[in-house]
């Protein structure tokens, strides 16, 4: 007890050095565990989501980018395709197509334009309010709603794409019709809206003032105004003025999730996209993610080795620091010896100091690991969205 008392007093007096030693010790202990938690967590999250998504159609190119965009709404957007890809699957009668348009953001979160089938497909429940029903309505993921402090009845404005592009995308104010229940997936961090609403954001669909008023029409005086007012919010009063130009088949989507009706349909659909000249490709997320996880774990093995080397180096630095500290305390040890202390007391003092540092490091490491474990879901979703 006396050794612990003296050791604690010494560590408290040299608090800065003690803090550094405890933090370094905590990191040596925590980093491998954090790495394991995140790796296992990412493997689970990736695999679970991929296993529940049978097929994805997108532009030919990086299969991984396509899967990451369609499943995890990652920062790297997939090259857009047209709605014709979705119509084609629908017409074939082989599966249920769910278009996704992920081109736009709001408050740093992705706006996902889709259909109501997506919520049934992902088994997403509504916590408050309802799903979107009319143009301009949105459903918000639970984590995003919490982060932004918004709920049913509030509005969110899409981020402008280019402030100086007069012909570009203009912000659209969307009203939140519902908040989704937490699902522990990327769906918690995005804003869902009808794919048509996302086309309005893209400027493909729009609403504006009538060019002529009824009164003018009656009088036969038609004078179009160049300063035509474009609506940036869809309301009951102006919803009828919204319209789309061109054919719906040519409208952009980022990817199409396909849920084949049966195994045979799935095989037929795969065969249709095997042609290398086809600008579209159909990928199986499960295979792509399995390959990714395999690569991650191969890299993780290397990281483990690097972590081990760094850990040994840090532990050696800690040992050196403690050793030098004891060298500096040679006078104290000489005094203790003169006063009648034996080597056992001196070793007990050194041991107590190491024990306290180790215990404190274990406590800090446990706190770090617990906090990472508690927030691993959000952390993984953030990492996967990068």
């Amino acid at each position, binding site marked *: 007890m*006396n050794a612990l*008392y*003296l050791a604690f*007093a*010494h560590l*408290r*007096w*040299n608090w800065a050095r003690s803090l550094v030693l405890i933090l370094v010790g905590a990191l040596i202990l925590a980093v491998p565990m954090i790495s394991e938690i995140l790796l296992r967590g990412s493997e689970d999250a990736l695999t679970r989501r991929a296993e529940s998504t049978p097929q994805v159609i997108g532009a030919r190119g990086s299969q991984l980018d396509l899967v990451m965009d369609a499943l995890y709404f990652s920062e790297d957007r997939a090259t857009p395709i047209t709605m014709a890809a979705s119509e084609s699957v629908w017409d074939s009668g082989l599966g249920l197509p769910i278009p996704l348009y992920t081109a736009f953001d709001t408050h740093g979160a992705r706006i996902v334009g889709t259909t109501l089938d997506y919520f049934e497909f992902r088994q997403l429940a509504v916590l408050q309010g309802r799903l979107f029903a009319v143009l301009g309505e949105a459903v918000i993921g639970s984590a995003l709603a919490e982060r932004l402090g918004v709920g049913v009845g509030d509005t969110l404005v899409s981020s402008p794409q280019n402030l100086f592009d007069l012909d570009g995308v203009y912000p659209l104010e969307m009203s939140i019709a519902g908040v989704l229940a937490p699902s522990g997936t990327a769906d918690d961090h995005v804003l869902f809206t009808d794919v048509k609403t996302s086309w309005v954001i893209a400027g493909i669909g729009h609403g504006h003032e009538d060019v002529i008023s009824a009164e003018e029409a009656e009088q036969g005086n038609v004078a179009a105004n160049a300063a035509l007012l474009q609506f940036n919010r869809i309301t009951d009063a102006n919803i009828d003025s919204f319209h789309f130009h061109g054919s719906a088949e040519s409208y952009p989507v980022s990817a199409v999730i396909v849920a084949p009706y049966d195994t045979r349909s799935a095989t037929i659909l795969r065969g249709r996209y095997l042609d290398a000249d086809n600008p579209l490709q159909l990928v199986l997320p499960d295979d792509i993610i399995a390959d990714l996880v395999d690569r991650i774990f191969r890299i993780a093995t290397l990281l483990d080795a690097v972590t081990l080397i760094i850990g040994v180096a840090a532990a050696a630095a800690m040992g050196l620091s403690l050793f030098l500290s004891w060298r500096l305390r040679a*006078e*104290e040890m000489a*005094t*203790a*010896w*003169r*006063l*009648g*202390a*034996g080597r*056992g*007391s001196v070793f007990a*003092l050194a041991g107590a100091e190491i024990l306290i540092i180790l215990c404190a490091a274990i406590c800090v490491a446990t706190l770090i690991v617990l906090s990472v474990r508690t927030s691993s879901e959000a952390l993984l979703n953030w990492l996967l969205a990068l």
Partner: protein
Amino acid sequence: MERRELIQLQDVSFGYPQGAFRLSIPALAIDSGARVAVVGPSGSGKTTLLNLVAGLAIPETGSVTVGETVVSDLNDAARRRFRADRIGFVFQNFALMDYLTAGENILYPYRIVRSLRLDAGVRKRALQLAEACGIADKLDRHPGALSQGEQQRVAICRALVTRPSLILADEATGNLDPETKVVILDLLFARAAEQGAALLAVTHDHELLQRFDRVIDFADLRQATVS
């Protein structure tokens, strides 16, 4: 007050393994409760004498006896117990632990020596010593926040708290200003006398010698001269 011989050195010779220095003391006796000064030039063996008496150095020949204990015959563990029980040390550089408060420094022997037991009686004695030395209101301060005189008072309290029969002071006033020297020495004398402890003090300060009962002069390097 009846005085008995507390320290006896008989035919002692000592030399460091790597060095030409040798100390020979044919005979030396110091009474219990005596205040003895040890003087002499640097390197003459003053500190070695203290080390021999404390069991920190073992004579090559002869014997060192303190009270009933033949220190030179004790093994290492017994010498440590002897020091803890019988000797109080006061050093020139105070040797206080900067990370402990003055109060904790006084009780330091009870923290570091396993055979000493810290209880309420010891704490009470420590407080009484601090009051007697005029530092009772500074017990929660660390040595860095104390003057040199106050630090040496703390060191004196630490030396006396185990109730030793012998106090060994090695240049205890060497780092103090002239006024404080006298105050600290008087304090040391008074507290030692209170406990009936003998005082063996190495000093270079000849002005203070008249205050001691006896002076051992190491001026002759080859042989200790006892006056």
